[in-house]
Each structure stands twice: as C-alpha cells, then as structure tokens.
C-alpha cells in the first residue's frame, strides 16, 4: 500500500508548479531518458530496472517492438529489424548504400526508406518509435504528461540531421524545447556543482564516432569554444584491431559469419582487458593469450588519432593544453585504460569518471530541460553553443564564400552583399553550402533558391544582401534582398540529400590537407573569372561602339578574345594572365576612344560654360 505524504503546514509544494521535463539521449546504439528529481538528475529505468534502451525497432507481423526484444530479433528477422537508424537521419540514398537493409527512395523527398513488412518506414519514423517508448516510460514514472523535452544530438550534426531529429520528436508527440549538443550536455552533468570557473575538454568516444569539444564555464555560463573530431573512428575500431590480430596470428581467412563471431569475441576481450592484465582467448579451437600491453600496442594508432583531434580542437580554441582544468569522458569506449592514460599524459591530470559515461549525456540533458521548462527560475546556467561547420554561398567560378565560420557562437545573424555579374541581369541563383573547403564541389549543398525581379542595371550596380540566420538549435534560414528595389527571397533549409558522418569528418580533415591545393585551385578559378569578365565586357563594348575601331583593330581584338576564350578552358593560370594582359593592352586605345565619345555625347547640345 502506498503511503500518503503529508507536508508541514505552509510548506506544501504546489503540485502544479513543478513542470515535468526530461532529457533524452537518442543514441545510435542505445537511448536513454533522464529527469531531475529533487536535487539530482537520474536516468529512468524500465520495469525491469534497465536504463539503456537499445535503439532497435522490430516490425513484427502483429506488432512493433522496440529495445531489447527488438534487438533479439536482429539475427532471426534482420530485414524487419532496424538498428542504427540514427546514421540515416537527414541523410540521402547514397548514405544508405552498404547498410544491411532494403531501401527505396521516398517519392516526395527522395530520402531513403527502410522496406519492411509494415511498408516503407523512414529513419525519422523509426526514431519516433524509440522516442515514443521513452516518452511512455517518462510519463509513467513522472505520473503525467510531459511539458517539454531536451534531445541531444552530436555536435557534428548538420541542419538536415537536426531537423530530422526535431521531426521525429514531433511525430512522437514531444515538445522539444531545445536540441542540445551531446558534449555540452556531458559538461553540464559534471559542471554545475563544481568550480565556478574553468575550461573543460569533453572527450566522447562512442562505438563508431569520436567527438571532442572544448568548453569554458564561468558562473554557470557554458561557452563552447571549439568542437572537432573524427566520425569514422570509434570503439568498434578497437574490436576490429583485435580481430585483425587474431586473423594474422592464426593465419586464417574468416568467412563473413566467422568474422562476425570474431568481432563479438574481440569485444569481450576488450572489455575483460579493462579489468585484467591479460586474457586467454579461444577462437574455434585456436587459443592464445592477449595481454593488455599487446592490446594497447594494437590500438595505439587509433588513440593517437583521437589525441591529434584533441590538439586541433585546442588550437581552434586558441588554448594551450595547460589551460584545461578538467577532462570529461563520454561513451562506453572511454572505459579502455589506454584512452584514459593517454588523456592523463596529455593533460597531466586524470579525466573525470564519476558519472557513468553511458548515462552522462542524458543526465546533462535532463538538467537543461529542468531549467528550460522553468523549474529553476533563479538558475544562472546558460549554454552558449557554436556551429560545427562553416556556412557559405557559391560565388562566381564555383568558389565558396564563407559567411558564418565554424565555431561561431549561436544564435547568429550574418549578412553579406553580393552583386550582379552581367549587364541587365535580373535573376540570381543563391546556392547555400556547408563545409570548410574552397571549391563548391567539395562542400555540402544545403539548398538553392532564386532571387528574381532584380531591376536591370549594369553589372556590379545591384546590391544583393544575403542574410544567414542560425537559431539556438543550430537550424539555418537564409534570405536575400536586393537593396535598391527591396525584392526578397528566402528558404528554410530542409533535409535534402546528405553526406555520411564519415564524409563530414573527411570534409574537415580534407580542408586541412588540401589547404594548399585549394589555394592554387582558387587562384586559377579567380583568374578564369577575371578572363570571363573581360570577355563579357569587351564583347558588350564591341557591340555598342565597334564602329569606333578600324577593321584591322577590330580583327586583332576579336582574335585575341577568341584566344583568351580557348586558353581559359585550360588550367594554366599564368597563360590566362598573359592573354588577359594582351587583351587589355589591345583594347586600351579603344577604351580611350569610347571614353571620349561618351564625353562628347554627354556634352553634345550643352555649352561648355554651363559646367563651370
């Protein structure tokens, strides 16, 4: 029998005052829900006491099930059992390739749909099923409807992925108060009752991804200084390293099934080596001993890669490693001692590990949800987050002009003026891009829109102001206005085709590796644009005032122009420059004659004295 609670007179808590809010960690492998209960934030378990809900959905003949029951169906009914749907949130068909499911393209959006016996379902729908289970769990535990939730996303998530996450939540009937970056949530979980001021590194090593963020905490204000990582590196790679070692030592060529068994064994070996110095392993009769030292040698290159990303994030934040006061661990793979040791060597202090690395993100999200819903009106906590990738526009010649640089604090509004390229141009295509590279083709296309109805003017006279706005959830909207006429156009970026996580990591890495290459490419493109501009302007001048030239002059200029057009198709920056100079030399006299003619025309009918 439940006991009735009686509070002291005058201290009765008003039950309507406390609002029900939860934080949700919608993970690739597992998902969790947490809430603030009194002074502490804790994850909510299911009826059997388990907090972790495997992010797996099984579409059965009679019903849909989620979690462990669904995960148990993975082997038996793999086509109808969807795991890791998060990898495809806001992603395109190309990203679905290689995943062990049947896909079809959505007739509306072209986005990939899982083909199941219950029909085609989108990654958003699959995620909504997971969220629905967590929502029910929370409502039962808190005894009522939820007022609001905070859902965490990887710091690397782009607009499409964030939008898809929000869509899944509304499909599940949740009111999302904020999307919160996972590392920020982890820092919140540790930060509140700790030091007043400090700089924190959040090292998040999950199964398949690695994220690093540097945050500054000052009197409750969390400021993200930089974020980076490697989304094709994770704990799964540790398992692969062990499996490769077995294959090499045993001299076997495993079949696909054997490889799968081997990876499962490798995972166990890795977990045992967290506790013990060595482990005996037996793979189909082949026996060996693997010591922790040997294991650490196997994974050393992987750990080194994460440390490089850590150093890069420090540089991005303009900080020395001594400036870091605390290191926070997120993700099950941070239990590996070699990872902790490497961090301790780098920063000279052991990383914080008092909060379960599997739960820390959900716990931080719950704290933020409690504040946002209004349960702590006096709270000083404020999270100032940043955008993970630069946003820009395509300009002449396939170049990307960055408008909002990565690691800029959000919300942000940034405007830049552009102009027309041709005389009388009345429309302009605005192509919005995300990424760090110089060339459009190397970045991600977020969307295109057209600004029409620009009044005809000479090239360069129109003032087109393009405004980027990124809100506190990291969602982008873009608008453009022609300043003299007030013509407007805008888009909200919606999920379109996407890049895989690996491609995003690649894009950031590439932007460093190819920086020099890009510079040459940019210089060439700029030269080509100059040439195109010259071809354009001389051609229009010839059309208007060709009669000012003798036949010979006209012929020379035309020949030089057609040479320039040819040379411009090749990639020889120097040759283009030489030919541009030639054309400009040949047209000098022509330009002078045009100038005189137009002055004469302007003066025609006027007495010179009028101008004195």
């Amino acid at each position, binding site marked *: 029998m439940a006991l009735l609670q009686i509070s002291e007179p005058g201290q009765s808590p008003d039950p309507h005052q406390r609002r029900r809010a939860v934080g949700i960690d919608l993970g690739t492998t597992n998902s969790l829900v947490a809430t603030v209960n009194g002074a502490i934030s804790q994850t909510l378990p299911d009826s059997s006491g388990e907090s972790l809900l495997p992010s797996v959905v099984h579409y059965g003949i009679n019903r849909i099930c989620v979690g462990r029951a669904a995960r148990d169906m993975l082997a038996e009914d793999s086509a109808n059992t969807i795991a890791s749907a998060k990898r495809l949130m806001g992603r395109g068909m190309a990203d679905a390739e290689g995943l062990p499911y049947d896909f079809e393209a959505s007739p509306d959006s072209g986005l990939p749909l899982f083909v199941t016996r219950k029909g085609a379902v989108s990654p958003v729908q699959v995620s909504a099923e997971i969220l629905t289970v967590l929502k029910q769990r929370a409502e039962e535990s808190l005894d009522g409807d939820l007022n609001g939730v905070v859902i965490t996303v990887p710091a690397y998530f782009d607009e499409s992925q964030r939008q898809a996450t929000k869509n899944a939540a509304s499909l599940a009937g949740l009111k999302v108060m904020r999307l919160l970056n996972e590392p920020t949530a982890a820092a919140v979980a540790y930060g509140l009752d700790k030091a007043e001021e400090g700089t924190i590194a959040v090292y998040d090593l999950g199964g398949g991804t690695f994220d690093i963020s540097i945050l500054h905490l000052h009197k409750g204000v969390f400021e993200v200084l930089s974020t980076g990582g490697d989304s094709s590196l994770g704990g799964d790679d540790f398992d692969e390293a062990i499996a490769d070692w077995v294959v090499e030592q045993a001299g076997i060529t495993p079949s696909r099934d054997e490889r799968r068994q081997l990876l499962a064994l490798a995972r166990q070996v890795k977990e045992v080596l967290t506790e013990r110095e060595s482990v005996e392993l037996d793979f189909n009769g082949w026996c060996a001993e693997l010591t922790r030292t040997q294991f650490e040698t196997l994974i050393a290159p992987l750990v080194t890669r994460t440390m490089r990303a850590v150093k890069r994030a420090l540089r991005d934040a303009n900080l020395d490693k001594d400036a870091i006061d605390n290191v926070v661990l997120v993700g099950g793979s941070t239990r590996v001692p070699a990872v902790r040791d490497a961090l301790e060597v780098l920063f000279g202090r052991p990383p914080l590990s008092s909060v379960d690395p599997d739960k820390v993100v959900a716990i931080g999200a719950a704290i933020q949800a409690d504040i946002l819903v209004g349960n702590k009106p006096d709270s000083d906590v404020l999270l100032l987050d940043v955008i993970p990738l630069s946003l820009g526009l395509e300009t002449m010649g396939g170049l990307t002009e960055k408008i909002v640089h990565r690691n*800029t604090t959000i919300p942000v509004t940034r405007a830049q003026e552009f102009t027309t390229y041709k005389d009388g141009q009345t429309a302009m295509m605005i192509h919005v891009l995300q990424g760090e590279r110089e060339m459009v083709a190397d970045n991600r296309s977020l969307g295109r829109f057209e600004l029409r109805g620009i009044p005809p003017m000479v090239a360069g006279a129109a003032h087109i102001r393009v405004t980027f706005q990124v809100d506190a959830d990291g969602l982008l909207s873009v608008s453009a206005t022609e300043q003299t006429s007030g013509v407007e156009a805008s888009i909200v970026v919606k999920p379109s085709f996407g890049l895989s996580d690996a491609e995003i990591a690649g894009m950031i890495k590439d932007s460093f590796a190819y*920086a020099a290459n890009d510079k040459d490419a940019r210089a060439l493109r700029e030269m080509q644009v100059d040439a195109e501009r010259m071809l354009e302007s001389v051609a229009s001048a010839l059309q208007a005032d060709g009669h000012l030239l003798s036949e010979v002059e006209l012929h020379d200029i035309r020949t030089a122009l057609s040479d320039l057009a040819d040379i411009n198709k090749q990639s020889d920056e120097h040759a283009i420059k030489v030919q541009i100079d030639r054309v400009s030399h040949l047209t000098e006299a022509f330009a002078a004659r045009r100038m005189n003619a137009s002055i004469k025309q302007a003066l025609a009918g006027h007495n010179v004295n009028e101008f004195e």
Partner: protein
Amino acid sequence: MFQQNYFELFGLPIQFDVDRTALSSAFRSKQAAHHPDKFAHADAATQRESMQASAFINQAYQTLLSPTQRAAYLLELAEGRVRSDHTMRPDGAFLMQQMMWREQLDEASELDEVEDLIDTFRAALPSVESAFVGAYQGGDLELAHHCVDKMQFIYKLVAEAESKEARLADD
C-alpha cells in the same frame, strides 16, 4: 538595444584598447538576460525577439574581441558608414616586408622555422596597432584605414602560418 553601438552595449568606452575581462563579463550578463534559453516557454514573438537580441550580442562581442574588426568598427562609427573604397596609400617599405614574409613562410619547411615566423609576425602587431590609435585619435582616418589593412594582412598571415604549423605538427 539595437540602437546602441557595440561599445555602449557592453558599457565600455569607445576606444581601441579594450578591457577583455570587462568585455567578457558584460557579454555573459547580456546573454544571460536575452538568450533564447531564457524564453523557451514564451510566445513565438518573444522568442524571435530574444533570438535577434542574442544574435546582436554575439555579433557585438565577436567584433570587439577581434582587434582588426574592432579597429574597422571604430572607423565605421567615426565615418557613419562602412567603407571599402578607401584609397590605398603606397607604402613601399611595408609592401617589401609583406613580400619577404610571404616568401619566408612559403619556404619554411621545419616546424621551428614556422613557429619563429609566427613570433616575428605577431611582434609586428603592437607598432601597427599603436599607429592606428595615433591616426584614429589624431583624426587622420585615411591613415587609420591603412593601419587596419596592415593589421588585417598580419593576422591573415599569422592564421596561414598557424595552419601550416598544424599541418607540420600532424605529420
């Protein structure tokens, strides 16, 4: 708030030298009052307003944090508009210096060399900055623009050198 200039917004004197600690603490208290997180439960109009205010505060903070942007902003305030069309003053000595530095950076292949160059470039900043302050206070805005160009060049060069440093350190 949107009528205030960035210095007024943070309660700072309108001048090139900025007290970093005062700036950061004013920034945090402004954000604490206007950030969208403080209005997560408000109506849509209030939320939009808070987002605009918060974006404005971010923009102001970023501008005042960066010495080049701060200097350019001071000139913008003094002239009442943004100018991109100021005439470049020929400064043969600085031009030679630019070319020499670029060459040195292109040719540097060792981490130590690049680090030394970064120190050299940075060491050139204080004199350019004090030249800016002199020109700005003396009302020679053309000269002040010229100093901003120089600062911009040096910071860009430092950034390039740092990314080269990062590449070399990773190898």
